[in-house]
């Protein structure tokens, strides 16, 4: 009886008339995205502006928010069944899979080659799959060096001068480390993506341009990974934050245990809330200068869409300098459009370091499944740090696995 009453109540509570949102005879373009609350509200403004332009009178864009955590399975199943959207914002690493499964539209048919030079090279390159541009860079970020000024002062270092080169990094690191107290100069993640800044400052490529050969065992790559391992093994300035169950770099930095970490602009507001006195520096330079990796998202148009041209027009507008500048100014993000760099003015000096760092990025390795690459290579990276293998052995083994498991996909 109680159950019946409870259930009846539930039914009443969940009884809602579904309000239809299809507007006034305009053609609806579905845009699946994974933005947060603030971003979604600005996206709506931009969509309304675009729809109001006279040439776009016939279109209506319906922005639909998905959780980032589930956007890949959701898109995979929806596309398999033919219920996918017209366009979507996806993780940068997902573009290669979608393109190779023949789901995305090659942008060159709409004249993308003419406008592609306006985009920042690093993020743009993540859309360049097998000789074709398959998506727009849409939101981007990269890693840079966060350092704790208070800890720098305490170690007698100038708090306004982060290390410029890896040698300097090691030298300063030794001053900052006090392992008896559990204080270390550096805390690092040990995944492929987080290791890319090391590879890139040594000019090492992971996968050859045509996507057929693994170059992890090249001389530069081994040197880069050797340096990374030495921070922990030889110089002992790294805390072992990569270990399972270790204090993560972020947490160590917030609790003032690690003086320096590599992290992205997404942590700026967080760390400000944590009330730490911190600064941002460029990634220390290697033989090929400073460089970083590329994160963020790209926007793709699906072949199942009936109106790819309209989607293309919207995405061009969305990534245009003015719109990008406004978007980034409001949200404190890094523009994907080079021309937008002159239009944004950030008061936060730290964010400007990220803008500078972004221009030094060279793009990420293109593989169908970046997750698979991580799964295959990460254990080898860890084997170096735990001393089970030397850098060259591990990279040789990693290459074998990559060529059989990742590049054949």
């Amino acid at each position, binding site marked *: 009886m109680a159950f019946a009453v409870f259930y009846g109540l539930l039914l009443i509570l*969940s009884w809602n008339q579904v309000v239809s949102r299809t507007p006034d005879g305009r053609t609806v373009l579905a845009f699946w995205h994974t933005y947060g609350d603030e971003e979604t509200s600005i996206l709506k403004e931009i969509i309304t502006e675009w729809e109001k332009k006279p040439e776009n009178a016939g279109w209506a864009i319906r922005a639909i928010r998905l959780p980032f955590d589930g956007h890949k399975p959701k898109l995979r199943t929806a596309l398999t069944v033919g219920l996918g959207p017209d366009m979507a914002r996806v993780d940068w690493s997902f573009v290669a899979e979608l393109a190779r499964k023949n789901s995305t539209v090659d942008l060159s048919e709409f004249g993308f080659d003419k406008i592609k030079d306006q985009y920042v090279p690093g993020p743009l390159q993540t859309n360049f799959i097998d000789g074709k541009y398959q998506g727009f860079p849409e939101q981007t970020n990269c890693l840079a060096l966060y350092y704790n000024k208070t800890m720098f002062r305490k170690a007698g270092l100038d708090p306004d001068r982060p290390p410029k080169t890896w040698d300097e990094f090691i030298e300063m690191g030794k001053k900052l480390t006090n392992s008896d107290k559990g204080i270390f100069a550096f805390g690092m993640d040990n995944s492929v993506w987080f290791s890319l800044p090391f590879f890139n400052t040594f000019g090492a490529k992971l996968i050859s341009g045509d996507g057929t050969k693994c170059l992890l065992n090249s001389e530069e790559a081994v040197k880069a990974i050797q340096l990374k391992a030495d921070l922990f093994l030889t110089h002992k300035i790294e805390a072992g934050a990569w270990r399972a169950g270790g204090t993560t770099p972020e947490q160590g930095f917030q609790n003032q245990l690690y003086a320096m970490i590599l992290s992205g602009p997404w942590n700026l507001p967080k760390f400000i809330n944590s009330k730490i006195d911190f600064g941002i520096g460029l990634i220390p330079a290697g033989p090929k200068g400073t460089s970083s990796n590329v994160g963020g998202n790209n926007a793709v148009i699906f072949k199942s869409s009936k109106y790819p041209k309209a989607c293309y027009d919207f995405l061009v507008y969305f990534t245009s300098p003015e719109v990008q500048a406004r978007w980034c100014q409001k949200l404190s993000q890094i523009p994907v459009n080079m021309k937008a760099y002159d239009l944004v003015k950030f008061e936060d000096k730290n964010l400007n370091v990220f803008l500078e760092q972004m221009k030094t990025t060279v793009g990420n390795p293109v593989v169908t499944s970046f997750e698979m690459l991580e799964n295959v290579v990460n254990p080898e990276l860890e084997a170096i740090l735990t001393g089970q293998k030397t850098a060259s052995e591990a990279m040789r083994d990693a290459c074998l696995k990559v060529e059989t498991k990742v590049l054949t996909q």
Partner: protein
Amino acid sequence: MKNMSPIRIVGFVALLAVLMTISVGIFGQLLKFGTMVVVSFTHQPVVNPKFPPASDLKAFQQIINKFFEAYNSSDPGNTIEHLSSSSTLEKTKEAFASGFVKRYQNDFGLSLSGTVNKEESFVQDSSLGAKIVYRTIFDKEKKGNADFEFVREGEVWKLKTVDFTRLRTTMDKSGKFVQGAAFSISYLIIVVVILKWLKTPVARRYDFLKMLFLYEALVIGVVVVMFPFFWMFSTAFKASGTELIFNEKNPFDIVPNEPTINNFKRVLKMDPEQEAQTDPIEKKNNFSTYFVNSLLVATTAAFFVTLLSAMAAYVFSKKELPYKNALFGFLLATMMIPGLMFMVPQFFMICKMGLCGTKLAMFLPHLASVFGVFMLKQFMDTIPSSLLEAARIDGASEWQVFSVVIIPLAMPIILTLFLLTFLFHWSNFLWQLIVTDFANPLSITLPVGLALFRGQYTSEIGQIMSASCFSIVPIAVLFLIAQKYFIEGMTQGAVKE
């Protein structure tokens, strides 16, 4: 019989000490938590502490200047152009200033008094001159930390900037009262226990000790079990960006010092900004909608799964039909195939039926539960057939046999199945994600809705935790209700053949 055994006394005192530690710990944290909840409503965390008023600064500058004049005259050839200091903020300006001056005097050897933690302070050379920096560790009593920067302009030193990094919070101020209250309660308990001990006849004091020990052990067990929940509730009150910061000295002290109620407000969409939302669909796009949706989906699914499984299990257990065992074996064999394999075909079929994005789609493919049938059949096999025969002789119909005899006897296992199914659907992320129509918030369920709080690189841990505070409620309630039936069912079903 001896009236006092020394061992017994020692045991009692030891247990009292343990009791004291436990109760101070528990009541301290619980009272702090209670205070924190109140404070979270009344005081918002200080994001940007205010610059002190100009009059205060002037008074402060005069005190400092006196010292610097003395310092300059004692060492005329000094090259220091720039001084910065970071020091603890005391209650009054004068107290702070004199403490501050003392530290400088101490450092320059002008005076012998004053204390400074040498390890935390240092002098640094730079191209401009010397820079003196003090660092003060935050501790429980002195949370204030201010950075001062002085620049020399001609003959006088001018205060350039004051930067407060952390202030004494309302929680700190109430800390002493909370601690005092925790101690008083603990003393009260100790007194009560001692009185009881004195009242207990000497012969039964050994039993009393045993009981006391048992209760203390149980309380420790409860603390261990409840700690994660306590952690969750506490984290829900932490401001964004501070969730992972812990007390350096006592990592178990997890109640935030600067609590905020904003996480709950954001989750329930009670922010003023969000209330301005005019779109009727977006207005529905909030946690309470997800919650009701999930409750409906999970309850319906659990009810029908249990009903269908019970009926099927009854037939497999008590009825004769050709190839019964082979059929049952075949059903069991389907359990060997991982459920993920069906996902895409099931999704395809559901969409072909036109059910995509409806609540029905969330549980329809899971209604036939082989596991449920198996579990109930195994239990029903143990119900004696003679009971059914007796019912039939009394003139019961087939349905009556099922509903009057089988269901009440199998209630414990039926409730277990109900719980398991409820839990499965309450937290079934992947399938619900796939069939959800995100354009229509009325189809978003809790596990999927919770995922919306996670971004690509960052998670709003505080918001996830505050949402989780609500999401455990139905499960907790269900367990509490079911617990009663479990015990009832156990005793009622005890029949000997």
